[in-house]
């Protein structure tokens, strides 16, 4: 069975790489997108199981990426995990649209926890 695909959208190169490593350790094929303006076409094309999304990014921020994902029919159901530096700044809209909100810094435990959940869901959907 091929490993499910996860995307990490974060403008911080080192942190993005660390997330990719962590997701790989948890059984995903993971890819990092540093330039958020490229996120939408790549995600639409490759249809990952889950997207780990940073909020504050230049050009196109996380809230805008999330909104676009939800408005696009082919990406509306992709699981999105939002990683925010300050959850007090998070809008109600983002809270409603995200599947999970994590306060930065995200720990390995948290990644493992949601990864396990996503993998179980993914296996169940593949079995259907």
């Amino acid at each position, binding site marked *: 069975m091929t490993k499910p695909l996860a995307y990490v959208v974060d403008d911080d190169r080192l*942190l993005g790489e*660390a997330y990719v490593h962590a997701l790989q350790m948890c059984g995903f094929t993971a890819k990092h997108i540093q330039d958020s303006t490229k996120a939408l076409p790549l995600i639409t094309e490759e249809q990952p199981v889950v997207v780990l999304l940073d909020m504050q990014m230049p050009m196109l921020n996380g809230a805008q990426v999330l909104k676009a994902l939800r408005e696009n029919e082919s990406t509306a159901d992709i699981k999105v995990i939002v990683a925010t530096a*300050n959850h007090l700044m998070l809008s109600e809209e983002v809270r409603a649209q995200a599947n999970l909100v994590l306060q930065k*810094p*995200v*720990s390995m*435990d948290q990644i493992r*926890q949601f990864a396990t959940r996503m993998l179980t869901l993914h296996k169940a959907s593949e079995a259907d």
Partner: protein
Amino acid sequence: MSDGDTAALPRQLEALDREQLLQTSRKLLAEADALSSRISVLNEIGLAINESLDLERIEHVIAKKAKWLLDFDHCSVCLKEDDDWRIKTLFGGPEPETLDLGKMPNLAQVIYTPRPVIIKAGSESTFLKDYASQIIIPLMAESGFMGAICFATTESNRYTRDDLRIGHMLALQLSSAIRNARNFAELQVTQAELKMRVEELDAYGHTIAHDLKGPLGNVKLRAEMFSMKFREQVPEAATKLVAGIGQSADQMTQMVNQLLTLAKLRTGDEQFTPVNVRKVVDAALERYSHLVETKGIHVEVSELPDACGQAQWIEEIFANLISNAIKYMGQENATPSITITGTSQPAAVRYEVRDTGIGIKPEAQGSLFEMFSRVHEVPDIEGIGLGLSIVSRIITRLRGEIGVESTYGEGTTFWFTLPPATTCVEGELSP
């Protein structure tokens, strides 16, 4: 002169005196009457100009109403602004030229003495050369000389000492109105500056949080990955060293979070709405679900009444109290548990977060809600003692109260109250 004549004289004199007396009395009465009506006009003007905090509005009132007090064809005000002088014609002509005291000897005299002057037949002033009669009165504040007001008319010998007195009384009222308007304007500038600074500070804080959290998260995650991936391959000492890096990153993260929350708490809007507290508690618990799971803590949440407040801040209260309960659960706790309950009281809703942790000594309970106080001598617990002071500040802001009950060695109960949801009317807290 006959006897009859001599007898008639005192009577005549008497009649004359009486007539004069009557006339004098009438004249005095008329003067008093005029004076009293001038004073009541003066009061009216005083009230009108002191009602406003806007200098232009004050000048407008003077130009319009001072006519009831004094006859004039010209009225101007000269004010010192910082180190500059400004002269402005409020009524009649001419439009002011640039202020040149050399060409305005009377004004210069008022400015330098500073005493009022009364001019009866023409002045050397080029500005007011067409006006034979003038009264120029200084405007004073406690900080000193502020400027002068000038009334003028083309007719000579027009103004009396009484006019000067009335003008002086008007100047007193005007001075206090101008001083108030200036203080108010200054206050507004300061306030705007302060608001801008606070906004800058918040933006700065937010940037710092984001920028710090990136590298911090990276440090933490890589330390954790290292331990996970290479635990079997490296000596135990190496794993321990790396774990220390992760713990330090956690500690720093918490400090950043707390300072950020404090900054946010300082500003923020005051919109209060009914809050589904159960939902908020679930969100707060979700933040610590992994810790609760790994530490095997039993969590129980009873039915919770709704409150009036701000959801994000109530979540912050619960998150802090839950985090504290987890932190101070104790290493060898056989029955670690957290119970969250809520009750409706007549004027408030009360919530409790109860734990079976290590408890707090009675002597430490008093300073618990002060900034930077850490009462536990528990090693390896991150934090700089801001958590409970934040909680306490949030609760005060939400118009509630907080307290603690604890038995050392048995556990701690934090309780707090909030206004009930019914006190929220269309997003506003009713008085």
